[in-house]
Each structure stands twice: as C-alpha cells, then as structure tokens.
C-alpha cells in the first residue's frame, strides 16, 4: 500500500488508498527510485532548471513557502529568489508575464495556485498566449508552462472554489497543449517535455495524486506530449480515463479481471491535442468503451472522447459508450454531498458491467 510522503499537501491530505503496484511503468532492470507524484514534479523542475538557465519559476508563494502544496519546496534555497520568483496575487499578470518573458527567450514555468483561479488568467492564456503565434504569422513562439493543481481531494472538502477540474476550458483553445498526468513517472516525463516544448502548455496536476508514490527512472527521460498511454492492455472493454480517474480505472480493471473481464485502460494524459488514433484503435479492438473523467459531465472531456470513438470505431461498437463523470454541480463542502460528486472505483466497475451486458 502507498504511504503518504512528507510532501503531503499543505492543505492536509487523505491517505491514498490505491496501491502503487496498480501502475508499473518502469521496465524491470532500469534503475529507478520510488517517489511521490509531487517529488517527481519537483525533480522535473529542478533538473530542467539545472539543464537550462532560461527556465525559471514564477507564481504566488512558490518561494520559501514552497507553494500551496509544497511542490516547489527546496527549490528556492537552491535557485534563489530570481529563478523561483514570488509574485503578488495577480493571476492574469503572472500568465501574461510568462508570455512576455517567453517572447524574449526565457522558458517560464508559472504556477497558478488552483486551477479554479485560472478564470482570472483566462484572457492571457486563451486570447494572448494561445494565439500570438498565429496572429503574428509565426514571428514568435510562446514556450511556457503553466502548472495548475486541479481536482478534488486535497484533504477533500475544499468546496466550490478550490476543487474543480477545468481541462476543457483550455483543451478547447487551439494553440495550447493541455497535459494531466496520473503517475509520478508520467508527471516527471511530461513536465520535462512540456518545459522543452516550444508552445504554451497547460500542465494540470491532480491535488489528490500529489502524495501517490511510484517508480521513476534515475536517468533523464521525456515523454511525448502527443500520446495517450495504454496503462493496461485488455481485450474486452476499453476504459478511457484521465488523471486520478486512471487509478479508479486500474482498480476496476483488477477487480474485474477476477471475473474474467479483460479491461484495457487508456490514460488520456495529453488532453489536447488529443491522440485520437490510440483511442480509436483500442475502441476498435474491444468494441466496448467506458469514459471516465472527474470534471462535470456536461460539455466535459468525455463528450469529445465519445465523439472520437464514434468517428473512429462506430462500426466496431457492440454497445453504447458509457461515461462516468463528475456530477453537474458546483462542489459542495459537506462530506455527505461531496462523496457522491466524483466517480469512484465502484462507479467504473458498474459502467464496465453495463457495457459488457
């Protein structure tokens, strides 16, 4: 069972209940260490800052405080206040400053403390950074990363303004890439790739996953920002999932394996641009598809994925695609109401059973 690391979030953490063995990504024999998702992110930042002096961090309370979730802890001591740069509370200007710095050759990695606050930065992200390259006819590029924690689960009960999953806001905007890793391995490899990418990348981190642990290779590696990742191969049904939901999908797959149902789990991982190929291929193979996302159901990511399945695999489908999603509700505070707001393993199991009928 996973243990909660010292880097549990500042806002309190409920111990993860998933076993890290559910997802093993480092091949046997490759030197690796176990670390948390949060440590993996921190390591990616550290390594990229060492590798490239143009990389710097900018955001609220990321300095000595180490950020609201402690992700940047120790980096301030190592790199100092210029490269781990605290800002006033000014989300739009953090994003815009990242764009400006990127335009003159820097490689900013900005942090917006919660994705919920990114509504304040929407103009700079979606109207300026995403469009500058096209608007200027290719005269410039905007190589930044904006890191934003999202999702429920930082000790839970963070209520309506600190718990949302908003990947769709950004995935709908051409010019942006949107990434949301589910494991320490992916988090490190994708973040390093995002920092080296020449485009503005929205890098969403899942708050509840920060304390999740897993193996990460010792050597330098990057992962492509263009591929869904098959986390588990299977024959009977495809589960397409994102972020923390990948863990529920994996747990559901394990549960159902005992019943002889072979589940393939596709981790979307890069929300946009979407790897339609991989989703399509898996759907054609199994003919049965479940989509799982934590975001609110309506106009959430599962719509797009479902439509892609429709386009790529309609003739192969043996049952309607089923989705398992967050409730269409602002997130309530009380446990009794919050509990039902997000999907869990049982919900995924039930959905799989439904498409198997």
């Amino acid at each position, binding site marked *: 069972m996973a243990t909660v690391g010292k880097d549990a979030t500042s806002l309190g953490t409920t111990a993860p209940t998933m076993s890290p063995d559910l997802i093993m990504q480092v091949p046997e024999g490759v030197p690796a260490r176990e670390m948390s998702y949060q440590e993996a992110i921190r390591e990616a930042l550290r390594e990229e800052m060492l590798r490239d002096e143009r990389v710097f961090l900018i955001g609220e309370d990321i300095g000595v405080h180490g950020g*609201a979730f402690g992700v940047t802890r120790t980096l301030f001591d190592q790199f100092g206040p210029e490269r781990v740069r605290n800002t006033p509370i000014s989300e739009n200007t953090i994003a815009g400053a990242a764009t400006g710095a990127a335009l003159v050759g820097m490689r900013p990695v900005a942090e917006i403390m919660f994705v*919920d606050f990114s509504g304040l930065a929407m103009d700079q992200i979606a109207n300026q950074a995403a469009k500058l390259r096209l608007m200027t006819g290719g005269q410039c590029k905007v190589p930044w990363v904006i890191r934003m924690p999202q999702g429920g689960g930082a*000790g839970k009960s963070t209520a309506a303004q600190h718990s949302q999953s908003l990947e769709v806001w950004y995935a709908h905007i051409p010019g942006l890439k949107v990434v949301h890793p589910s494991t320490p391995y992916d988090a490190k490899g994708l973040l390093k790739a995002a920092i080296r990418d020449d485009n503005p990348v929205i890098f969403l981190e899942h708050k509840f996953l920060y304390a999740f642990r897993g193996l990460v290779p010792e050597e330098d590696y990057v992962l492509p920002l263009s591929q869904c990742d098959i986390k588990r191969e299977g024959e009977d049904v495809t589960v397409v999932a994102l972020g923390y939901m990948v863990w529920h999908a994996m747990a559901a797959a394990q549960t159902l394996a005992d019943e002889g149902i072979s589940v393939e789990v596709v981790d979307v991982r890069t929300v946009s641009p979407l790897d339609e190929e991989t989703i399509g291929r898996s759907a054609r193979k199994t003919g049965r598809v479940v989509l799982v996302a934590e975001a609110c159901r309506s106009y959430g990511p599962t719509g797009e994925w479902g439509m892609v399945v429709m386009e790529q695999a309609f003739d192969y489908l043996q049952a309607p695609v089923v989705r398992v999603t967050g409730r*269409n509700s602002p997130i*309530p505070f*009380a446990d009794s*109401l919050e509990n039902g707001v997000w999907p869990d393993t049982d919900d995924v199991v039930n959905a799989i059973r439904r498409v198997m009928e």
Partner: protein
Amino acid sequence: MEVSRDTLLEMYRRMVRIREFELAAMDLFKRGQVKGAVHPYIGQEASGVGVCMALRKDDLIAGTHRSHGHNIAKGADPKKMMAEILGKETGYCKGRGGSMHIAAFETGSLGALAVVGSGIPIAVGAALGFKMKGEDRVAVPFTGDGGSNTGNWHEGLNMASIWDLPVVFVLENNRYAVSTNIRYSAKIEDLSIRAQAYGIPGVRVDGFDVLAVYEAAVEAVERARRGEGPTLLVTEAYRFEGHYAGEPEVYRDRAEVQEYRKKDPIPRFRKYLIKEEKASQSELDDVDAEIRQEMADAVKFAQESPQPDPATAMDYIYA
C-alpha cells in the same frame, strides 16, 4: 467620538466571540473534525468589529477566505457558523459552503468568496443596487493587503468612485498574503495612498485599536450613506496565527509574531474599558465566561447536527 457603554460592551463581546470561535475552530481542526481549511482571524478582531459596529444590520458585507471574524462582527450566530464549518445541514449554508464560504444573509453578510479580490466587484454591484433603489444602505467588502494587488481591486474602486457608490473598502493589512510580505508585493508602505488613484479618501488606522477603527468606519459609512461616495479604509493589523490552521509559517520569525502579539487588541480594549470605567473586571470576566459557554454550546450543536441528506445533492444549483 462619544461611544455608548452598550456599544463598547458589544464591541468587546464580539471581539471575544471571534477569538473564542477561532480557538474552538482550530481545536476542532486539530482533532480532525473540520475538513478543508480554516483561516483564523485571531489578532484582527478589532478591525472587523470596529468596522461592522459602524454598520446597520441591513448594510452588507462581503468576505474572504478569512471571514469567520467578519461574520461574527456583523452579528452572525456562532451556532450556525460552527455547524457550517463542520459541514452540517444546520449551518448557515446548509453545509454546502464550509469555512471559506460562510454567508449569513439574515445578518447582512452576502458571502465569503475565497477567490482573493472577488468580493470587491460584488459589493460594488450591491452598492449600485442600493443607489438605484434609493436605499441608504452601505456595502463593505473586506480584502487583505494581498487582495489590494489584484485587478479586481483597481476596477472595483474605480467603478465605485465614478458613481459615488456607498461602499467602504476595508483593506486589512495584516502584512502577509500567505507567505508574501506586503513590503515585497507592494512598493509603498502606506496602502491608503492608493485611494488617490480614484479621487476618494484613503484613511489608515491602527487595526489593533477597535475604537480607532470604529471612528474611521463611522465617518466613512456616514459619507457613503450621504451619497458622497466610497472610502478606502486601511486597518494596519497582523495575523497572529498561520495563514491557515496548521500552516508552518516558515516565512516569518517567531520574534516578529511575539512582538505583534503584544498589541493584542482584546486585552488592550479590556484595559481601556476598565481604565475608563466603562466596565469592571468582573463584568468582563462574565462576558468571557458567557462566550466560552456559548462556544461550547455551538460546538455541541454543530457536532450533533446531521450532515446534509445526499438525496438533496442537486438542490440549490438552479433557482
């Protein structure tokens, strides 16, 4: 300014109520009974109480993530507040809001909005509503030093100024926004200067002195009520606790905190009341005891209250 004995005692009562509420909340948090975050107002009681005692019940305040104190200062019932932070159906927001979002419309608190600065535009709109309806009510958004650096703040003060809206913008300068000292995040020491950008009065008072705050607030509120427009009121304060209960405070020296704790507004006001013979030691002891009991009752009420029924999960999304 002549302040009646009743008012003085009510100020004392509310300050102590805030303090005891926060201590009880932090205690519950430590014992794992409060989920989410608790942002204690301890040390800033004179600011919230000084301001809210200058208000009528039908005046409105807009709060922040740190608004237990503002709500109590405005007259909210600790029972319903405690129930709210425990996520109970008997809470002000029926358990849907929690610590960061306590609204108590019945006592003129239109909500605590945890996105820093977001209460400003809403309070400006409420004031616009008052003005259009010909009501002489006043809207009071609270923000912190950190909040005064947000775009919302600028837009809101500007909009209120051009329409002479009845708003008192209270900027509680407790010197930190999470870990970020205001000396770092603003180039000026006296934030009340910012009022000049909008051609409105900027007033700066000792936020540990409830009477100083009250006097300044009364003046600003009267000005607003007369239709003469908004005021920026900066209360110079300090938060004695971490940003939230349990926060490690790596960004400041204990010595600095100790120094500020000497300014504790409650003992200071207590001394004043006794010295000026507004109340005796034992009268005040009685208030303290009464409020401690009130808080014990509130905790019990909250703990014994039921959580919301999951069957009501889809309530209150649409009207």
